[in-house]
């Protein structure tokens, strides 16, 4: 058969044809290196931590304020600092997520003289590893401007490690016009809240927006339910690994959550928090439990219509005074190249003057300093000041109050599983507990 005979002769051909590149270029097919795009997306991770300027007249700042508004705010504050002190600040900026994910290697490598970070457990965790500089002497100068709550959140034991600049409350946001048109009242208790949700459903709206595709927004719901049902102290102890996740107390939180879940948007795991905010903006949802930054999703002219109220009381003995109000601030690594300059900068950022500049340019949070100028605040910001000032307990948010590895590898998957199937609470609890035991006992060093 001719077919048979020709085949063996041809066997030598494909060997040559394996030299793909030459064939490719000859045929002028698109040349792009396969997968290069994937790599470049990861490339940024290692690119933080530039060389320290070393000179006594300059410092470097590692910043996670990559978005436009916070960037402008920080640049304005830096300019004011340089003018005042004569110290140049070189800002090495990465986007928020990249900075957070690489913080570990960043701090162990060649970190900048100061860097942006969070207060609370999430700061102490790195101090316990010996990676953070002591700011107690800075606090002697700036401490008078802060409340005890800020001092506690910025301290690890007796020493201070964070200079807080701003914070923002988590609460239930709504559009005032929507509530007025429908004659809805602000709920004071859980019964009010459930009745309101039923009324909202009757009016054809979704009562509560929820988007948990990124995994963290549902933590806010857990936090507030846990603080309302079990109190602030239990919540903080649970976060610190001193309480059990399969306890009846935590079980009660999930049962309550499962009861409220039908009032939330369906399929939350398939929706980003921005999309959920859009549903509030478009009057499809009536309420949305989120941080003050929800305002970023509202166009300028609609922001006046945005309002919030505290999550209603569940247990009268506990009240409704606890909330999540995460604090953002600046920290110094254990051995910065220019410690004097770094502390000078931190003293400045811990002043009312610097925080006024920051907040003015980026109004989705409020200044941490007691003497900050609130005259330019929006109505919403004033309300935020008030709710935080009257708080009985201030938590930092789940992923800032507990070990970050526990939050990202255990809490997020189990919370998402719960949102998919709220009936199987026992499995959720045992998965959380198993993860807690593994990470809290195994990770100790």
């Amino acid at each position, binding site marked *: 058969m*001719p*077919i048979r005979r020709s085949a063996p002769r*041809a066997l030598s051909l494909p060997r040559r044809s394996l030299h793909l590149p030459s064939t490719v270029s000859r045929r002028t097919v*698109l040349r792009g290196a396969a997968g290069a795009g*994937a790599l470049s997306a990861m490339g940024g991770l290692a690119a933080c931590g530039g060389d320290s300027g070393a000179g006594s007249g300059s410092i470097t700042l590692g910043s996670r304020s990559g978005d436009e508004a916070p960037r402008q705010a920080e640049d304005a504050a830096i300019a004011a600092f340089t003018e005042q002190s004569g110290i140049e600040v070189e800002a090495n900026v990465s986007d928020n997520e990249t900075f957070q*994910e690489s913080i570990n290697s960043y701090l162990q490598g060649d970190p900048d003289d100061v860097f942006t970070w969070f207060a609370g457990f999430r700061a102490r965790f790195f101090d316990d590893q010996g990676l953070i500089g002591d700011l107690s002497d800075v606090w002697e100068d700036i401490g008078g401007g802060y409340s005890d709550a800020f001092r506690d959140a910025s301290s690890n034991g007796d020493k201070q490690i964070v200079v807080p600049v701003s914070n923002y409350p988590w609460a239930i946001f709504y559009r005032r016009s929507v509530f007025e048109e429908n004659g809805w009242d602000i709920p004071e208790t859980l019964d009010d809240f459930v009745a309101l949700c039923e009324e909202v459903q009757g009016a054809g709206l979704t009562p509560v927006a929820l988007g948990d595709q990124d995994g963290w927004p549902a933590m806010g719901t857990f936090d507030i339910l846990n603080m309302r049902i079990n109190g602030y102290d239990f919540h903080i102890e649970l976060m610190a690994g001193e309480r059990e996740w399969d306890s009846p107390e935590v079980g009660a939180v999930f049962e309550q959550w499962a009861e409220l879940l039908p009032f939330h948007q369906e*399929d939350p795991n398939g929706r980003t928090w921005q999309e959920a905010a859009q549903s509030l903006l478009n009057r499809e949802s009536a309420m949305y439990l989120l941080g003050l930054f929800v305002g970023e999703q509202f166009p300028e002219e609609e922001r006046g219509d945005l309002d919030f109220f505290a999550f209603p009381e569940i247990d009268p003995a506990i009240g409704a005074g606890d909330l999540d109000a995460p604090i953002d601030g600046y920290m110094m690594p254990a051995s910065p190249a220019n410690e004097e300059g770094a502390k000078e900068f931190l003293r400045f950022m811990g002043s009312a003057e610097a925080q006024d500049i920051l907040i003015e340019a980026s109004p989705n949070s409020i200044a941490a300093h007691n003497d900050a100028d609130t005259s330019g605040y929006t109505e919403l910001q004033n309300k935020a000041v008030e709710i935080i000032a009257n708080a009985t307990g201030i938590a930092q948010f789940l992923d800032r109050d507990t070990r970050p590895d526990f939050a990202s590898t255990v809490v997020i998957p189990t919370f998402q599983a719960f949102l998919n199937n709220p009936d199987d609470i026992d499995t959720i609890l045992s998965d959380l507990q198993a993860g807690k035991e593994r990470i809290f006992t195994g990770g100790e060093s």
Partner: protein
Amino acid sequence: MATTSVPAPPAAGPTGGRDRPARRLRLLTRQDRVVLALMLGVPAILVLGIVWLPALGTVLLSFTNWNGIGPVSEIEFIGARNYTDVVTTYPPFDTAIRNNILFLVVLFLVATPLGMFMAVLLDRELRGTTFYRSALYIPVVLSLALVGFIWQLIYSRDQGLLNAVLGLQGPDAIAWYGDPNVNIWAILVASSWRHVGYIMLLYLAGLRGVDPSLKEAAAVDGAGQARTFFSVVFPVLRPVNIVVLVITVIEALRAFDIAWVVNKGRNGLELLGTLVASNLIGEASLVGFGSAIATLLLAVSTVFIVIYLVTILRGEEQR
């Protein structure tokens, strides 16, 4: 067959085979030997240093509880606890295994054949071939962030193109990313979209190397298009087929990128690759635990590598 006039036939007589290769070696000058040593040694060192040493390090770390902070001397060994933990207290692991197998099956049965089919179609001189080829290959070139954004626009539950086209709104809408029974298929479509372009390009290059007279001969003998491909072209392309097969297996095992941009590989999108990343990368890396998963992935990959090598070597012997 081999006559004595040929200088160094590989199939020499049974007696002459011993001393001949030795004499040949001595024919090499010193310079030849240095060049040879460099050409073999440098890649060998690179492979050892960049691939096998870190791999070995990963295996070692998988027996520790290191969190990525502090000196290496303080690392504490905890035996096989990470492995038992992975299997017993880490529910995403089972899902990840299932998803990786699903990836393998779908890429092998659907995406790879589709890519080969596209290559065969485009190998014929159609009008606008360059355009079609570019269109199919573009997904491979696009950056990961862009790919994630494109599919978010399509799969978004409330605002996505797909639900709008299907007329699914409100409570009927399908959460393509949110429903853990659906989203892996959504990701498979997105991954296949890239894989098809990749395979197409590889296979097209292979097809270009086929002697056209083979196809002409087959046509003269009365073979149809399909018969020509399966009886002549496909067997001739055996080496390319093997490359394509290996790439398919590798792509399935290291599947990572699109699931990661969607939701960091959670909620039904767990893959071995994303589990390794989410445990290793991050603020407080669980280096030991993540390494245990990586080691398991390495073990699975090794099985496929061994199968591949055995097949290749056996194939070479048969020649």
